């Protein structure tokens, strides 16, 4: 060790105490983030045990009576529980199926735009909806889908749909509305990561292919797509990894008493039972079930990907 002369190596030679002392400023800087994470992330994780207790505010997280699996049993005996689980999974699955491939295809086309100014304008325009809040998006959807004079309803009627069709209240339209608006809002934004990867491709590779007589289409197929594969796999794992965490916000804002048959998902139920009805323990139990399913999914997907392609993220 004494042969090494760099500052770090000399440092490593000291006792742990000395090394800690030498870095005290970093611990000072980390103090607030660590405390905040402990209080607002770890304390609630500890508090998850109220899912197995009958929580009351006086006795707190660990003083309330232990009731075992009572809340889980209540959830599964609820006639709506299967519907909620199905809704959550289907909404998520359909979302991934529709929203995942579009940014990839889009980025391959954008990357081929030769006029860089046009390319930049395209990007600016398609990023725009990402910066609109879910609240405003849902407000727009409600206006556009209004049976009286709404932009989309008018268009649908023009295309032959019956008049006065109320899309917002229709449970069969909910998923379509949810997913197509997601595509509108985030497909453009989703191209960034792929475009960034594509811009790292060596230009000479494309030049060489051109000399060999490859057309644009062939170059996309044999140069661009292979470059994107690893990042596509990682993105795919991540989307499946959060399958059960499908967005609360939009489902909640698009939910009406009439479309609950498809719009009621686990997260909206957790909110309703927990905060509106103050059924703290029950709501926590439902959420815990959701998290547990999600973690199992994450592990499975990660394992599959590791086997298939040697790409994993945990």
């Amino acid at each position, binding site marked *: 060790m004494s042969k090494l002369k760099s500052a*770090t190596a000399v*440092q490593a030679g000291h006792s742990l105490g000395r*090394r800690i002392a030498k*870095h005290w*400023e*970093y611990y000072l*800087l980390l103090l607030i*983030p660590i405390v*905040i*994470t402990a*209080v*607002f*992330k770890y304390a*609630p*994780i500890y*508090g*998850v045990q*109220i899912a197995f207790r009958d929580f009351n505010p006086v006795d707190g*997280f660990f003083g309330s009576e232990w009731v075992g699996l009572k809340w889980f049993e209540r959830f599964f005996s609820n006639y709506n529980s299967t519907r909620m689980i199905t809704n959550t999974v289907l909404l998520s699955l359909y979302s991934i199926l529709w929203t995942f491939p579009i940014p990839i295809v889009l980025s391959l*086309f*954008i990357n*081929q*735009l030769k006029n860089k100014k046009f390319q930049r*304008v*395209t990007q*600016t325009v*398609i*990023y*725009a*909806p990402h*910066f609109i*809040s*879910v*609240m*405003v998006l*849902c*407000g*727009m959807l*409600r*206006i556009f889908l209004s049976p009286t*004079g709404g*932009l989309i309803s008018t268009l649908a009627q023009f295309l032959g749909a019956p008049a006065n069709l109320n899309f917002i209240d229709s449970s069969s339209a909910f998923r379509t509305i949810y997913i197509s608006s997601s595509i*509108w809002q985030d497909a*453009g934004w989703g191209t*960034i990561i792929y*475009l*960034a*990867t594509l811009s*790292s491709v060596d230009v000479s590779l494309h030049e060489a292919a051109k000399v060999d007589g490859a*057309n*644009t*289409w062939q170059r996309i197929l044999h140069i661009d797509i292979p470059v994107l594969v690893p*990042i596509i796999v990682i993105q795919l794992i991540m989307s499946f990894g959060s399958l059960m965490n499908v967005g609360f916000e939009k489902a909640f804002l698009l939910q009406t008493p009439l479309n609950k048959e498809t719009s009621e998902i686990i997260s909206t139920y*957790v909110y309703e039972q927990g*905060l509106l009805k103050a059924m*703290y323990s029950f*709501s*926590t139990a439902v959420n815990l079930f959701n*998290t547990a399913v999600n*973690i199992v999914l994450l592990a499975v997907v990660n394992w599959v990907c590791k086997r298939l392609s040697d790409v994993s993220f945990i």
Partner: protein
Amino acid sequence: MKETTAKKRGLSSDRIFDIFNYALMAVIMIVVAYPLYYVLIASISNPYEVYAGHTFLLPADMTFEGYARVFKEPAIAMGYLNSIWYTVLGTVVTVAMTITTGYCMSKKTLPFRRAIMLFFVFTMYFNGGLIPTYLVVSKLQLLDSVWALILPGGISVYNVIVTRTFFETSVPGEIYEAASIDGSGNLGTYFKIALPLAKPIIAVMVIFTMVGYWNDWYQALIYMNDKAKYPLQLALRQILIQSQAMTSMMGNMDGGYAEANKIKELIKFASIVVGSVPMLIAYPFVQKYFEKGFTVGAVKG
């Protein structure tokens, strides 16, 4: 078949691809931008004209009454001020903590570095969920306080990883060594050398965090009971989702129910514009940094 006709006309398949590509992008841009344009047009048109479908391309019978009524509404004005304050404070606190943590995590010599990182990363995959977090916040008497909107989100672990990777890969270690030889302490090196070098990454984080706070209503829905403390987006909920125009907006109106309904629509369009314009104006200025924010994070250490 197509190829042969193309060659006859002197067009290569690449040329056809290009033409198709530009046309496709033009169509996509129209599809993306038109709804926003329509809302803007409708917000300054007579609502009867909007209803009649006369405002697809240009405003008809222009009026700014919608905006006048929106800004007269105290809930909107207050929401605006609240949102500005929450966004500024939230962005400063969150970005400062995130960059600082990322920097510390990039120090390979720091004892317990891996353990501390694990401590943060764990929270990306596991969390207590809605109610336990709510109970902690309420126990700490933070309900109705701006801190309830900022602290439970904590630091963004993903952004910590991005920052850490940035410092590890983009800042040469010799710079730090030179600084320490010059007698600069650890804190001095951080503030005087590392932070100025991290400007691009800070810019990305500021814009992402800012947009997050400006557009947030979910945290406020949970933690804010006092309507006077609602951020703009939550104030908009009443108008856009619950479709109740506030009484002060509807005040001094002649005409009956139909008239009221039309005014309500006008207010909706105006409030959408009012709620979205700040972020839509801001993002093109930092657009060049977006790719950086994603690529740096993708290089996983």
